[in-house]
């Protein structure tokens, strides 16, 4: 009887220890950064492929970005951003074969590469006017409707 009791106590103890180990969890420390997710459309159609970048205010650290697939993008919290206002840049290479010259390299005889054209207007990327304020409430329901 005594044996049985101590055994049961042991098993209970083991179960408790196991539960304690498992419950400590494996979540990484994201120090307050928010995961980002949302939708990007170009002229009403989901943008099939491209990239999105979130640039913080001048001088601040923490630029991040991700890949857009079928209009959706998802950036996990480990690569996320702190709440605040960000300038958004969206890039997408033309898939119809149109090309244009890439920026020139330094040097007198720099040959300009012909690469896939950028199909997003520059007011959404290089000279972006697209700003968004990211908070706990909206970080995973971001919507960007671009017009070409």
């Amino acid at each position, binding site marked *: *009887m*005594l*044996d*049985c009791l101590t*055994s*049961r106590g*042991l*098993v209970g103890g*083991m179960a408790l*220890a*196991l539960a304690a*180990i498992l419950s400590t969890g494996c979540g990484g420390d994201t120090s307050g950064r928010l995961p980002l997710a949302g939708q990007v459309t170009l002229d009403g159609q989901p943008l099939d*492929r491209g*990239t999105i*970048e979130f640039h913080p205010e001048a001088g601040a*650290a*923490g*630029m*991040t*970005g*991700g*890949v857009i697939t079928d209009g959706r993008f998802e*950036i996990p919290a480990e*690569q996320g951003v702190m709440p605040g206002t960000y300038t958004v*840049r969206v*890039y*997408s*290479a*033309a898939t119809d074969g149109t*090309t*244009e*010259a*890439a*920026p*020139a*390299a*330094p*040097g007198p005889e*720099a040959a300009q*590469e012909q*690469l*896939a*054209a*950028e199909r997003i207007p520059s007011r959404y*990327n*290089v000279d972006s006017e697209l700003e968004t304020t990211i908070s706990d409430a909206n970080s995973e329901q971001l919507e960007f409707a671009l017009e070409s």
Partner: protein
Amino acid sequence: MRRRGAFTLVELLVVIAIIGVLVGLLLPAVQAAREAARRMSCSNNLKQIGLAMHNYHDTHNVFPTGAAGCCYGTWPVLLMPYFEQGNVADLYVSWGDTSSTGVRYSGSPNVENVTGRRYDMLTCPSDQENSPIGEITSHNYAVNYGNTSKTQVSNLNGVIFGGAPFSADPSKEFGFHSVTDGTSNTLMVAEVRQGQGSDLRGFLWWGDASGFESYLGPNSPLPDRIYSSGYCKPVKGMPCDVSSSTNPTMFASRSQHPGGVNVALCDGSVRLFGETIDLETWRGLSTSRGGEVLELNQ
């Protein structure tokens, strides 16, 4: 009560549970120790490459050229005599012959003699090996082409090119004299990952993939850029997309090590840079004459 000589079921279960918990605790630790050993081996390779670069510089007074066009040789061939592979390098034909008539890295006899072999010193044991075209091998270390694109464009979406210790243009030569930011503040060689299948990332014998660009941060969530989608097979941790006029050909430094990438600096030291490093700092580190004020608190 006093009966002895056999285990009860409960006792057996308890023992199994204890063993289970111990194994559960130990296995991740063992795997972490194995990865730590691989990372050490990987950073030792970088140290050797750094020393070879210094020895090359002692002889030639410049760093090796990054690449001769797309297909006529890259820096590992030039560096081979300085890491005891001089006999192999002697067999490489028409290095730097950009006349489009010479033998490419992918032609005979270069494949049999040089580019079809695997070099342990250029391979990081944490990564998966790959041979994207025939038996020609990919490897894991790439030289620093600076903070814009592979062709070193002067202004990429507002990022101003700040010089680099290497170039894919054979007419340009750089040495310690051109590293005015200081050799301990400038990246030299960093890790890259080998793409799998027909993915050409880490394909060091090919001009485009011979270097890395710090426009993208270490282990960047943004894609590497390759000119053709056929050579671009995105997998987890290795996004990629085709080059475009706003995002020309470029490759981020990437690794399989948890948390960051190993990099050899121009002074020969090797550091692990966390992937959470501020992008401006990372770009500033890669420029050789950017004039940034940087503080490396590692």
